[in-house]
């Protein structure tokens, strides 16, 4: 394919993607009810993009931007003597991004709405397809709780498709995995989700890498497992070398080392970096690494 044809194709695909996204976000404006349990819309729906998100949410914009976000639909329902209900529907660039933001912005994984959800006091958060959905009312009342449940159901139903999960998840050993502890990321800022690893990008994490952090427990032991998938093995090797040079503790790849009574280790396998941190048992850490290796090399 020559360059001109390639650019034309990219333009057409981008145009269609933007068009579909715009259409879908507007669909929420049309499909959501104007009134629900006596809550009514009192101001126009709003839309924010990656330039205006800072004006809307204080403190969280960077999280969405670090994954890949296009637009957010915002609607507020009001009712006398009741808290406002705030709906935010984020259109993420991919279902991976919707899943990623979800893993970092909740405390537990449930399956009441969408593909995964969390219900907490005055809040329902879920993700489905490319959408990350948040419905809030603060403080929660009996009436508002009922209304946000209804709204969550309506939004869930209105999204017909489901989204695929990041492929790197397939390489996590399943046994002993605490599934609620899974954190997916493509920005180094999220590297310290379970234990402190580094303030800096010492693993060359970028939008083309797919990182996971997860906890494993058995009756006696625990370990934090890091798995990063790189586009190719040479990039993985460069990242490994950078990590070895930069990590605060001297490490030799493929060898576990004890630090403050905890075992740590890192290695490359094909285009993956595997790491174990804060492990209370050398054997348990080795077991997790062994099982991950086996999946990668299958």
């Amino acid at each position, binding site marked *: 394919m020559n360059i001109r044809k390639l650019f034309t194709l990219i333009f057409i695909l981008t145009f269609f993607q933007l068009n579909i996204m715009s259409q879908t976000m507007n669909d929420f404006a049309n499909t959501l009810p104007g009134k629900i349990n006596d809550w009514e819309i009192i101001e126009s729906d709003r839309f924010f993009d990656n330039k205006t998100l*800072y004006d809307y*949410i*204080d*403190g*969280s*914009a*960077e*999280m*969405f931007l670090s994954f890949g976000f296009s637009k*957010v639909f915002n609607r507020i329902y009001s009712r006398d003597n009741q808290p406002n209900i*705030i709906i*935010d529907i*984020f259109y993420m660039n991919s279902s991976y991004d919707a899943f990623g933001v979800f893993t*970092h*912005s*909740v*405390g537990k994984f449930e399956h009441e709405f969408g593909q995964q959800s*969390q219900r*907490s*006091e*005055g*809040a329902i*958060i879920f993700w489905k397809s490319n959408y*990350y959905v*948040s419905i*809030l009312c*603060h*403080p*929660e009342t009996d009436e508002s709780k009922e209304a946000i449940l209804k709204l969550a159901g309506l939004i869930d139903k209105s999204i017909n498709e489901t989204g695929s999960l990041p492929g790197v998840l397939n390489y996590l050993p399943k046994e002993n995995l605490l599934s609620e502890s899974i*954190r997916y990321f493509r920005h180094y*800022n*999220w590297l*310290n*989700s*379970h*234990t*402190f690893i580094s*303030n800096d990008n010492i693993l060359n994490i970028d939008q083309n890498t797919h990182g996971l952090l997860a*906890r494993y427990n058995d009756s006696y032991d*625990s370990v934090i497992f890091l798995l990063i998938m790189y586009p190719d093995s040479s990039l993985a090797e460069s990242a490994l070398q950078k990590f070895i040079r930069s990590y605060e503790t001297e490490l030799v790849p493929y060898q576990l080392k004890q630090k403050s009574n905890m075992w740590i280790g890192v290695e490359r396998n094909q285009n993956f970096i595997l790491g174990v941190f*804060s492990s209370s048992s050398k054997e348990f850490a080795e077991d997790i690494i062994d099982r991950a290796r086996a999946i990668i090399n299958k």
Partner: protein
Amino acid sequence: MSPKNLTRREFIKAGTIAAAGTLIINYPQSLFGKIDLKSRVILIRNRNVLDDTGKVIPDVIQEMLDESVKAILEIDELKKAWEKIIKPNDIVGIKTNVWNYLRTPIELEDAIKKRVKECGVAEENISIKDRGVLRDPVFQKATALINTRPMRTHYWSGVGSLIKNYIMFVEKPSDWHDDSCADLAAIWKMPHVADKTRLNVLVMLTPQFHNVGPHGFSNEYVWKYYGLIVGVDPVACDAVGLKIIEAKRKEFFGDDRPLNPPAKHIELADTRHHLGNADMKKIDIIRIGFEEGILI
């Protein structure tokens, strides 16, 4: 902006000790974290500060503030203590935080303002503001700042801190988000801010220890701590608040769950920007009030 990073030695040698605040003459050195001494931080707690509905009781918060100010200055007489902080001819900006879900209590803002007025400052020379400080005529002319905000977890900077509260003193706050807001302390050295902060009050009445959803708030992740952390060194106050948040996370989640991203701007405020002390070994915590659930 890249601040000029003076080492502590250079700082003193260069004769810029006055940069620690115009009241350095009045303050004992240990109140500041800028020199090689410990910073003094007051952690005061009073269960009566919140009623059953969570509303702040004005008299109690006033008392907590007053006790803290007396303790930080080691002066028994309240008026004399405040007069060490604010002079009648000062123009005073009270930098607050109005985040919708967890703002600085208005009762605390009022308590601060009341004492500032009692120091002889004219009403028109006092302003309480969060957003828009750059365009506020009082803040534009301010000779003294008092900084107050609640501590809460934050998706990008780890925690919303006293140090971070000054992000509104720059035109484009998002420019300071690089590397998890690592260099927020540099804002404190900008000419329109430097050397003006007389007091920091970190609100720990109902701190937030975990984020949920795009707005980052759920009632499930705040708890009644009934406290204020008060000091002259913002870094030391933040470091103490951070320890409490981290301890609460451990208690709540049942495992060691660090803040993500880490609140590195607090440590770097010490090690890179020399704004104050983040090292707990260099902080003297004076505890006032009940100890149960203190977490530090």
